[in-house]
């Protein structure tokens, strides 16, 4: 075992951020040890595919086996009847939470990016200065140009580096909006992905023809972390419509690609099945002296087998926005509030993009269930003066019909076989009653419904709140480590975006001549909430889902008093500890967080190299 050896850098977590940092440090000749709680990256993804094909519910976690030694919440755990509040049924202890935190993650080599969608947005300039511009939320200690333009001594911007590593397919002209700029002469590594017929339908019916709250309603192609041409040794996208939960052919980037490159440098070692449980610090210097971990032998059963101490000069926590604060808070032997927590901010400001789904039928076939899961959306409403009053959102056009929105194709197929109407379309019988069909009539009807389905997903910017927090539960996992306890709610600022999303839906659906089949919010569903307008007194009900965008909990900031890390992603309290990944975001903005995680990882790698010296 290499656990007595001392490394330049010890990284916790072999996901996107950890893999990028390891690769960059390995290239620079630094000796890196990664400890990863989950199992190794499999040689072939066939076993994951087989598991996916045979699962009844094709949830994000469906291809990936459960692991009692490194457990995680699953969509099925959170989504069941009241299960989210019962810690006996779900890993996250949400027994005292107001609303469910519905997003989940993976603990395995490659991390949660096994099932990321691939959407690779840059954040907008105003996303970094919400307090200054709109007197809302908080400013980042960095600005857009820190990521979007080359810093001194560099020829590429950190966003450029991230796009190159991921292999983003997009067109600069179509991504230059709301203040986004690019390095002069910059081109994305791969050409833009063609739009689907659903995208083209909304382009032709609404694009540039409407305004909403004085802002234009504009459709943009989505920058995609999937190959539009052979790139980095990987295949071209074949439109499996399965980016979440797994791309069968790895045309979609995932961090296992970068992790392999890191290993190929010869300077990076990974210990899998090593669950970090304590960050140890020196009482005098406050320097981190090691990271303790517990090992186990088998993914399928509880099987602790010992442990070790990973030691290096510098330490990087890259274990996502729930496991990272859990680890820090559990490191409370010497520091009662936990490591890196003199501000009391560790675990706070847990955020997601609460996802609002609206769906319907177009009049003519647009042939969904084809292409990548999402290829375009309305991006012009990600910023605007309205952000003084309510949260912003982006609108993702889903290419998977009502698969996410209504559990199709099962729901509609069963409706026409059983004569039920759970999907809402089965009203063709006498007096609007459901039909029970078979044979040619069944095929004709199913074809008619399925080829006209579409859905919108509103990714709502969630405001950072102190009380939305990860703390330690009194309940322990199978290795004896405290489980994360979650407290979660939506602010009125965030909720008001749902009111706007509903209004935009009505406006766009009317303009496009599409019929809504969105079901009313159901009080017995986990994501149900209401909002009462203080002016009109009108109360509306909504339902949200998780986006899988787990953000916040170790925010970066300008002062040690109100943030966990500084602008270099280094702990204010411990000079040899870095925290990176989505946990350091002070706000979540509206863009999918992946590209910003990657860009910050490139930056962190440079900072670490600088601190190590040559």
């Amino acid at each position, binding site marked *: 075992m290499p656990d007595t050896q001392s490394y330049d850098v010890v990284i916790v977590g072999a996901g996107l951020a950890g893999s990028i940092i390891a690769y960059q440090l390995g290239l620079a000749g630094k000796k890196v040890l990664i400890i990863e709680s989950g199992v190794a990256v499999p040689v072939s993804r066939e076993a994951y595919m087989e598991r996916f*094909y045979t699962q009844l519910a*094709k949830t994000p976690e469906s291809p990936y086996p459960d692991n009692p030694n490194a457990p995680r919440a699953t969509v099925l755990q959170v989504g069941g009847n009241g299960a989210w509040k019962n810690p006996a049924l779900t890993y996250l202890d949400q027994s005292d939470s107001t609303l469910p935190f519905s997003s989940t993650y993976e603990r395995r080599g490659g991390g949660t990016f096994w099932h990321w969608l691939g959407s690779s947005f840059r954040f907008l300039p105003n996303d970094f200065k919400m307090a200054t511009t709109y007197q809302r939320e908080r400013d980042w200690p960095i600005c857009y140009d820190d990521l979007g333009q080359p810093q001194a001594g560099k020829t590429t911007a950190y966003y450029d580096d991230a796009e190159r590593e991921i292999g983003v397919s997009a067109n600069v002209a179509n991504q230059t909006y709301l203040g986004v700029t690019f390095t002069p002469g910059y081109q994305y590594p791969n050409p833009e992905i*063609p739009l689907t017929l659903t995208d083209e339908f909304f382009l032709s019916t609404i694009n540039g023809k409407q305004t909403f709250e004085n802002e234009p309603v504009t459709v943009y192609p989505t920058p995609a972390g999937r190959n539009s041409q052979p790139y980095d040794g990987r295949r071209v996208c074949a439109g499996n*419509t399965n980016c979440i939960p797994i791309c069968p052919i790895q045309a979609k980037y995932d961090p296992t690609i970068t992790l392999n490159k890191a290993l190929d440098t010869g300077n990076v070692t990974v210990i899998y099945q090593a669950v970090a449980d304590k960050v140890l610090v020196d009482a005098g210097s406050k320097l981190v002296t090691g990271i303790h971990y517990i090992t186990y032998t088998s993914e399928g059963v509880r099987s602790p087998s010992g442990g070790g101490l990973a030691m290096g000069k510098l330490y990087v926590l890259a274990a996502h926005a729930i496991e990272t604060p859990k680890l820090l808070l559990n490191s409370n032997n010497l520091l009662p509030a936990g490591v890196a927590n003199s501000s009391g901010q560790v675990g706070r400001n847990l955020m997601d993009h609460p996802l609002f789904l609206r769906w319907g039928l177009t009049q003519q076939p647009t042939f969904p*269930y084809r292409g990548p899961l999402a290829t375009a959306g309305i991006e012009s409403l990600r910023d605007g003066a309205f952000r003084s009053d309510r949260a912003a959102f982006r609108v993702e056009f889903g290419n998977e019909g009502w698969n996410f929105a209504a559990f199709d194709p099962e729901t509609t197929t069963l409706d026409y076989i059983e004569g039920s109407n759970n999907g809402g379309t089965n009203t063709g019988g006498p007096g609007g009653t459901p039909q029970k069909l*078979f044979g*040619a009539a069944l095929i004709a009807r199913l074809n008619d419904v399925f080829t006209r389905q579409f859905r919108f997903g509103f990714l709502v910017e969630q405001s950072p709140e102190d009380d939305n927090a990860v703390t330690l539960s009194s309940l322990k996992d199978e290795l004896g480590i405290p489980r994360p306890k979650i407290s979660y709610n939506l602010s009125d600022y965030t909720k008001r975006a749902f009111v706007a999303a509903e209004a935009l839906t009505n406006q766009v659906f009317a303009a496009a001549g599409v019929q809504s089949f969105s079901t009313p919010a159901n009080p017995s569903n986990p994501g149900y909430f209401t909002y009462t307008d203080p002016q009109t007194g009108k109360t509306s009900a909504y339902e949200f889902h998780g986006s899988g965008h787990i953000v916040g909990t170790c925010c970066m900031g300008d002062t040690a008093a109100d943030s966990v890390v500084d602008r270099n992603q280094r702990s204010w309290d411990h000079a040899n500890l870095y925290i990176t990944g989505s946990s350091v975001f002070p706000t979540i903005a509206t863009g999918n967080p992946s590209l910003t995680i990657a860009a910050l990882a490139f930056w962190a790698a440079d900072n670490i190299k600088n601190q190590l010296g040559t």
Partner: protein
Amino acid sequence: MSTLTISVFVDLSSALTGVAASQLKPQIDPINIAGQYFATLTSHVAEPTLIKLVTTFQAAGNPVAGATAVLADPVLGPVARSIMKLWFLGVWYDPAKPTQAVNVVSAQAYKESLVWRVMQSHPMGYSMFTYGYWAKQPPALNQFIQPA
């Protein structure tokens, strides 16, 4: 009184689904989804019910009338609808609990389920198409489904 054979099962399946028997079970069939579904059905449904299924289907004189008679029968109807769900979704549903999925019959069954063809597409996670196909109209429905 004859028991259910795979040949009769395919004829009945064709009438219920509207898909040609030659597509459900080609003469030379290395994939043998029909065999998997036949085995699933016969392992879950009692022999007397299967015999009644055959008798009722065949007594009607033609496949559509046979399927109609089977679907109208209080005992056979739920069984017939479970057969339809096998073909369309690749999933076994208990006839006694018609909306409760029991299991995906196999990975092959998922990939071969008819619903993807009915929507002129491919199984999610198993594309038979190539880059950029989504920007164009799909082939016509009859390129995916041979009518019964």
